[in-house]
Each structure stands twice: as C-alpha cells, then as structure tokens.
C-alpha cells in the first residue's frame, strides 16, 4: 500500500500552512515531525477529507482520493488531536456506534470490538462511561476506534500529548502492533515518539516538508555543527549566551561537558561529535 502526495498546498488568508508538499509513504509507521503550528494538523485534516487543499494531488494505491473522498473515508482510521466524543455512553457503545457509522455489519462489529478492546487493554473498562476514562485510556479508546473496520490507512495526530511516560511507552507498542500491512502516519512534535518506532520520517516546518530515507540521514544534516566542549561551571553563562546549548553533563572533575550547536567551531578545544536525531532535527528547523 502506498500513499503519494504531490504538490499539496493550503493557505489560510495570507499564511501558507502547506507549501507544495511532496510525500511518498508505504507500509509501516511513518513519522511526521515538526514544531507546533508547522502544518502537521492541516496535512492530517486534508488527508481525512475535512478540509480541501488549494492545489495538489493525493493518491492511495494509485487512486485519486481527493476525487473519491467519500469512498476513501471507509479506508481511513483517524485519531485526531482532540478526542472526546460520546462521553455519556460506555466504551463498548461508543465503539459500536462508530462501527455503525463506518458501515461495519453487526456481527463483524461485535467480533472486532471484542478483539480491539483486548489489544488496547480496555476490556475491563468496556462498560465504563467514556467521560469517566483517564487521559491515557481515552487515547487508547481513540486508537481503538481508528482500528475499527481494519482500515488500510491510519492517521494519528499528536497521540502521546498529555500522557505519562508509562502510557506513552504502551501507546508506542500499540502503534507498532497495528502497523503491519497498512500505512500508519504518526504526527508529533515529540522526537521520542518516532525515534525507536517509525520506519521512516519526514520533517515539517512552516508548511514545507522534507522526507528522510533514514534517521541517519537526518543526523547527518548536523554533521560539523554539533560540538562538545568542557567548561567550568563559572564559564557556562558565557557560552550559554553565545551558542545554542543542546545538552549538559557534569563530569567527575565537576566540569561541565556541554554539547552546543554552532555553524563554526566555537572554541579551540571544542570537538566535533556525531549528531543525534534531535540535533539533526534542530539543524533542519533552524536552517
């Protein structure tokens, strides 16, 4: 299965939310990483048929989805950033209703709901009201509804926002498990969400998208721009005001080991080091 986006643009008044975006995604989890307001949600909403692009083309398995959006909706599982519907009914009823709206038959719905509730670890909460679920449980319910109907294309927008670390790790596990034989597009501004979980990634900023074949390619963008320096704690404020500090560690002699971002060598004793994914990301965002 393949999703192909070509020349996709969208403007709001005089602000360009998406600027001629090209993207090619195949089976597996694909991370869309960018700061808040970069255009991630706009891209997701266009793919979900909620807003129309100004121009561009989107194909799924060779089919033009902008022309067949009503039929394509049956192939989408979407977990938007905000998920808080049907608070007065139970988890099971909520899934059943969404299953009806997705056009799934009664027998198939029953089977799928039971299985999905086990997968997202919500079986014990099946009779609980949606409004009574914790934030983490509600996100799991969100992913459960996205999985209903076995969609070929799942989109999750900022899925781990507001989750505690344990829920976040569990959530990544769910996403990993559901990703076989389908395309999963995961939008986030949290690098950890995609670093150990995604098969590919694209960065988005100011409506522009750059696709990377591997995480190494992203790291390599920062080669020659990340430096390690050892400074006394009294001198820290001097470099703090001059350079972008990426990380700080205290070594055994009580000196600070500092990683800084700089286009030029910041000092005689600074050593260029292998950048991380985060540093590659910062380089692209600041370019």
């Amino acid at each position, binding site marked *: 299965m393949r999703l192909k986006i070509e020349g996709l643009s969208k403007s709001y008044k005089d602000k360009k939310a998406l600027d001629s975006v090209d993207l090619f995604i195949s089976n597996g989890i694909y991370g869309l990483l960018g700061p808040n307001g970069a255009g991630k949600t706009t891209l997701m*909403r266009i793919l*979900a*048929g*909620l*807003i*129309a692009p100004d121009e561009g083309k989107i194909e799924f398995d060779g*089919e033009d989805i902008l022309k*067949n959006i*009503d*039929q*394509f*909706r*049956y*192939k*989408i599982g*979407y*977990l*938007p*950033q*905000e*998920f*808080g*519907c*049907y608070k*007065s*009914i139970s988890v099971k*009823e909520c899934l*059943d*209703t*969404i299953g*009806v*709206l*997705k*056009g*799934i038959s009664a027998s198939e719905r029953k089977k799928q709901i039971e299985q999905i509730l086990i997968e997202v670890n919500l079986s014990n909460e099946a009779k609980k009201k949606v409004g009574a679920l914790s934030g983490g449980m509600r996100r799991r319910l*969100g992913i459960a*509804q996205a999985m209903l*109907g076995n969609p070929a294309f799942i989109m999750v927008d900022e899925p781990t926002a507001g989750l505690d670390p344990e829920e976040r790790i569990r959530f990544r596990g769910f996403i990993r498990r559901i990703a076989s034989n389908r395309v999963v597009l995961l939008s986030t501004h949290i690098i950890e969400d995609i670093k150990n979980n995604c098969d590919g990634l694209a960065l988005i900023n100011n409506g522009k998208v750059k696709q990377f074949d591997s995480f190494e390619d992203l790291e390599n963008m920062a080669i020659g721009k990340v430096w390690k320096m050892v400074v006394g704690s009294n001198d820290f404020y001097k470099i703090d005001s001059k350079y972008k500090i990426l990380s700080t560690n205290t070594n055994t002699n009580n000196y600070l080991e500092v990683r800084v971002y700089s286009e030029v060598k910041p000092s005689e004793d600074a050593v260029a080091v292998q950048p991380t994914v985060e540093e590659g990301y910062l380089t692209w965002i600041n370019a």
Partner: protein
Amino acid sequence: MDKRINKMVPLIFDLKTVSYGGYFILLALVVTMILHFVLMGGAATKYISLQTMVFIISVVGILVWIITPYLEIVNPESKELILSLPIDGLRYGFLRMLRMFAVYTSPVLLLLYFIYSISNGDKLAYGMVDVFLIAGALFFVSGLGMTAFLLSRNLIIGYGIPILWVAISFFYRGGASWLWHTCQWICPKPFESSLKYAVSHWITGMVLYIISAFIIKQRKYLMG
C-alpha cells in the same frame, strides 16, 4: 474500494445521548400536570392552561431531543473525528432527525389527548386538524432549531431562534408570524383556517430538515 454501507445510528444510542436534559423535560411535563391538578383544582380553565403549558414545554423539549444527538459535530473535542467518518446526510441527518421527532412527538400527542379526554367543558379543540397542527408546529420548530444550530454552529442560537419565534407567535397571537403562527392551536387567529397553518408548518419543516441534512454533509463548513 470497500462497498460498506452506512446504517442508522442505533435508537438506543440516541436515547442515551439525549442525556439528563431530554428526560428533565419529561419530568417537567409531569410536574406541570401535578401542579395544575393540585393548585388549580377548582379553576374553570385548568385544562386549557394545562394543555397550553404542555405544548410550550414540548417546544423546548423537541429542541433538546433533536439537537443534543448532534452536539458532537460542532463540539471542538469531537467534531474532527465524527466528520472524518463516512457519515451521510440522509441516514445520519434526515432519517435520524425524523426518528427522534417521531419518538418524542408521539407521547406528547398522547399526553394532550389524555388531558383532552379527562377534561369536561373547558378544553382546547383536539380534532384531526389540531393534531396535524400540533405535530406540524413541533416539526417546524425542530427543523428551525436544527438549521439555526448547524448554520451558526452554536447551541444557544439553535435554541434561541425557535424559542423566540414561538414566543412572538404566542404573545402577538400570530402577528409577524405569517403562515407560521406556531401557536395557532392555543392562541388562534380568528376566522383563519388551522389547516392552512398546519400545511405551512409541515412543508417548511420538511424543507428545514432537508437543509439540515445538507449542512451535515458540508464537512468543510462545519470544521469552521
């Protein structure tokens, strides 16, 4: 592409989504009944007053019953998900609204019939045309509320416009209400045919239901 077909949202789901507000209206009807029988026990016009109150409360009730199940498509927390689903204007909108209208209006008409049948001389008319007019008035009010709610994407406006309309119709006895004198049954214009008003309400109500179903399909508009 898949050939899955949407079905109607289960009725039990809608009955639960109506929530406390919807059932509070039914409670209000019961309280009105009790108050009239207890406080106005000896009053000559108690049945007319009771029928009028039941009708007025029902106007608010139909709005609660029709609009509440659709709150999810304007609520910022849920609309994105609901609108991304393959919902259609016919089943998700028109037929579902019609079903809620029927479910709510039937007991109201029965209640009015009950009051009519136990009353002696002091009562409002309750013939076929009157039933047609009452149901038509509720149909029109629900369509007006739903259209106002969807167009404005605002619950207050969804309730406010039809309630204002009914208030004008009631207090001005049809003045400025033209063919849509919703309270013709309880504050009739003399020498006017109730049937004319009933037909106007049903036709306009149907048009408003169709407009609402059409707006439900306009995802880009509802996304705001």
